[in-house]
């Protein structure tokens, strides 16, 4: 995927990546994340990618230049990450600190306090509802931002009367 010069192919490989990730999320019990990955990966990302590639050109013209700096940077980050994971609790350890402090409260009290058996939804919408408000704001920012940057053409085919669309006209 990194070496594919054909952008269309690269975008498709991103789709495969998303599919495999979705399966992985299910295996790791993160069904809500899997659901999101499924909806986003299958529904919108590929379409957006293809539309953008249609607008910008299909082939990557230039080979990767100066490959040493990026390799160095990713090695540095990767090395630091590996160093950092050395003393993280092992995979699936129920005694890990992450499983001890606040998470039990969600799992034990969550349904009683919110009336929602899906704890992910309970935490998402209630305990950390403000994060989710932020999340909606991010999406909203993206939508308004895309409008502000590209606008939406009002094709003039339908007649001059339609020219007053003020969602951002483009010449």
């Amino acid at each position, binding site marked *: *995927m*990194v070496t594919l010069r054909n*952008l269309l192919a*690269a975008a498709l490989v*991103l789709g495969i990546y998303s599919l495999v*990730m979705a399966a*992985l*999320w299910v295996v*790791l*019990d*993160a*069904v*809500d*994340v899997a659901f*999101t990955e499924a909806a986003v990966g299958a529904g*919108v*990302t590929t379409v*957006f*990618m293809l*539309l*953008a*590639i249609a*607008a*910008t*050109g299909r082939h*990557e*013209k*230039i080979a990767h*230049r*100066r490959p040493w700096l*990026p*390799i160095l*940077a*990713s090695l540095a980050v*990767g090395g630091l*990450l*590996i160093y950092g*994971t050395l003393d993280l609790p*092992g*995979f*699936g*350890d*129920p005694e890990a600190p*992450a*499983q001890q402090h606040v*998470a039990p409260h*969600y*799992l034990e009290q969550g349904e009683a306090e919110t009336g929602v058996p*899906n*704890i*992910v939804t309970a935490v*998402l919408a209630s305990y*950390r509802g403000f*994060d989710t408000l932020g*999340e909606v704001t*991010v999406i909203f920012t*993206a939508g308004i931002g*895309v409008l502000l*940057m*590209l606008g939406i053409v009002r094709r003039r085919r339908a007649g001059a009367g339609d020219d007053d669309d003020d969602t951002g006209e483009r010449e």
Partner: protein
Amino acid sequence: MEALSHVNYWAAIVLAMIGLYAVIAPSNLIKKLIGLGMFQSAIFLVYITVGKVEGGTAPIIDSGHAVYSNPLPHVLILTAIVVAVSTLAVGLALAVAIKRDYGTVEEDEIDEQDRR
């Protein structure tokens, strides 16, 4: 088992490294965005791995199960996925706008035009 307990993290790290390389190395802007998506997914994997509990099941309360995985990382990653999609959309829109302005989305060609 001890040796295997961190394999998941390392897989995520390898993905993160590939992703980071794919952000920095290509000259094509769309390609950079693809790399960015990979890099972010790899980080999500780290989080979800942290939340997995051995023998646990998905955190949807159900009478038949007693051990659940940690829901908090899932919530955080849901938010982060949304952020990633938004970033991707804005990035693609920017790339399209750049194509309009410069006629190309290759960073090297853009630099050349700017230098002129």
